[in-house]
């Protein structure tokens, strides 16, 4: 049994215009892997190739080059999709279905027999808070309800991996919390969760690992904790003479006065220690030394901005 839920190797998708012959490289030599049982976030600006990448994993789009494997199986083979539950971003469930009817259809396509479907459908409708809506036509559902029944659809066959495109889009805060709780519960059971989202704050709190795509290429991949720590240290001190403050300002990234304290921001541990020695030598009071972190948004902007700039 492989430890990798997804392995993409040099995956490339080039769209060619039929008439002008112009090429667009939607995904360009992308290699990444997702560990089994992890919660993985795929990020990137619009047009970065996220959806194309996901569609290649699901074989809805054929790669121009490269390979992808799902739990060690070639992603081009229909059998590789058996352990996957998928919720697309702009899903369009036929409105003639009731919630239960829609779940029954997609469960049958996943190969579930009738008795398993009859058992599982009420369970899932209750899980996503639509227990009373199973016999109502989907045309009557709100956007948030559609998203929740869509999640139920992705979960119907008890998949080993969920691929979710903007899973909380249109869902109210209570519903979001509910979805997050469901996903955490699934992760605890060992389900791999792959999320494609624009909501950076949500990805930051929810995902363990992220990949950021820019112009079809992998710009950054790593654990969220690793990517957002190690930016530097904030040293807060009181009773700092003006002379020393001016002296330290030359090595600090920033200096700010606040309620009688001065916050020095240093980029490295060495600079912080040197400043600390100087402050102690001058009998200054040290209030706090705090490692500072980047937000995922900082990482995201840093990852995509230079390439956006160079494209101009």
């Amino acid at each position: 049994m492989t430890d990798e839920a997804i392995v993409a190797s040099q995956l490339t998708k080039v769209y060619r215009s039929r008439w002008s012959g112009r090429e667009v490289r939607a995904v360009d030599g992308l290699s990444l892997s997702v560990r089994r049982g992890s919660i993985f976030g795929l990020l990137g600006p619009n047009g970065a190739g996220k959806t194309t990448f996901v569609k290649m994993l699901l074989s809805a789009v054929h790669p121009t080059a490269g390979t992808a494997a799902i739990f060690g199986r070639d992603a081009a083979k229909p059998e590789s999709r058996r352990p996957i539950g998928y919720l697309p971003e702009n899903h369009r469930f036929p409105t003639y279905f009731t919630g239960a009817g829609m779940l029954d259809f997609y469960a049958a396509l996943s190969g579930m027999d009738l008795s398993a479907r009859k058992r599982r459908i009420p369970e899932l409708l209750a899980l996503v808070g639509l227990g009373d809506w199973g016999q109502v036509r989907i045309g009557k559902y709100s956007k948030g309800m559609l998203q929740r029944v869509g999640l139920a659809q992705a979960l119907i066959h008890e998949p080993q991996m969920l691929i979710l495109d903007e899973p909380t889009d249109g869902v109210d805060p209570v519903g979001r919390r509910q979805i997050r709780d469901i996903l955490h519960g699934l992760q605890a059971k060992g389900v791999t969760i792959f999320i494609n989202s624009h909501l950076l704050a949500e990805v930051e709190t929810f995902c363990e690992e992220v990949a950021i795509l820019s112009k079809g290429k992998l710009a950054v991949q790593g654990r969220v904790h690793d990517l957002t720590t190690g930016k530097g240290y904030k040293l807060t001190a009181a009773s700092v003479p003006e002379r020393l403050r001016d002296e330290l300002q030359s090595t600090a990234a920033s200096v700010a006065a606040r309620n009688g304290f001065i916050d020095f921001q240093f980029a490295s541990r060495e600079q912080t220690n040197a400043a600390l020695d100087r402050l102690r030598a001058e009998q200054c009071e040290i209030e706090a030394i705090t490692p500072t972190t980047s937000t995922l948004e900082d990482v995201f902007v840093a990852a995509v901005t230079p390439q956006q700039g160079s494209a101009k």
Partner: protein
Amino acid sequence: MNPTATIALIQDTFREAMARKIFWGLFGLSTLMIVFFLFIMKIDVVEGAVATMSLFGRETGHSTDVNRMMTGVYGGIATFLYTWGMALAVFASAGLIPSVLEPGRIELILSKPVSRIHIMLGRYAGNVLVVAANTTYLVLGVWLILSAKTGIWRPEFLWSILATVFIFAVLLAVVVLIGVLWESTALATMVTVGLMILSPILAQTSTMMKLLSSESYRNAWRFLYNVLPKIYGIGTMTLDVVRQKPVTDFFPIWSSAIFGAAVLSAAIYVFVRRDF
């Protein structure tokens, strides 16, 4: 091939046909026709001859040989059902293929562990079965009523079910190909109607061979006649069967079957290779 998925795809086509009122539209028209024969057309048969026949309460004929009359009636109905039933079925179901290819719907179906060939064949079979169910209901209903009223049971009439469903299946292959290429219901309808109009014209091959001046025109005509589905030819064959005449030339059937199979294969090939 997973039978659960196949049944689900067929059921889904039925569900959509019902939701779009296609199934109920065809069912309603069929019921109207059955009601017509049940209540409006009255036939009194006395010792093998039609004593009186009335339509909307007015008498239309006297002392006709019932066998001869039924040959004419069955022939007329079979021709009517074949042409209009087929046209109606094509118009009604032309949208069922493009609808499943809509963005947001097809990706979800493709994400399931079902091959694209399986998906397309399941949808195609569902569509054919929708029309087969309605055609069977109509033809069987009309046959039972006429047979019970006249006491003449002509099972040959039931061949018109097969003929209508068969030619619909051939034309549906064209609808599927256009659907996967351009996702256009209007274009699919136009092309299939074009084939229906072209068929009786192309069937006049012997006359056209005399009229066409150049050999290349004649060859082009022969090519089109041989390749395109023989809608008119199969209609004529059905009429012959219903009239209890012998059928010796099966070329219209097998050549149309080859056309349908080739076009459906091309549609599946395009569908398998397409990005969604």
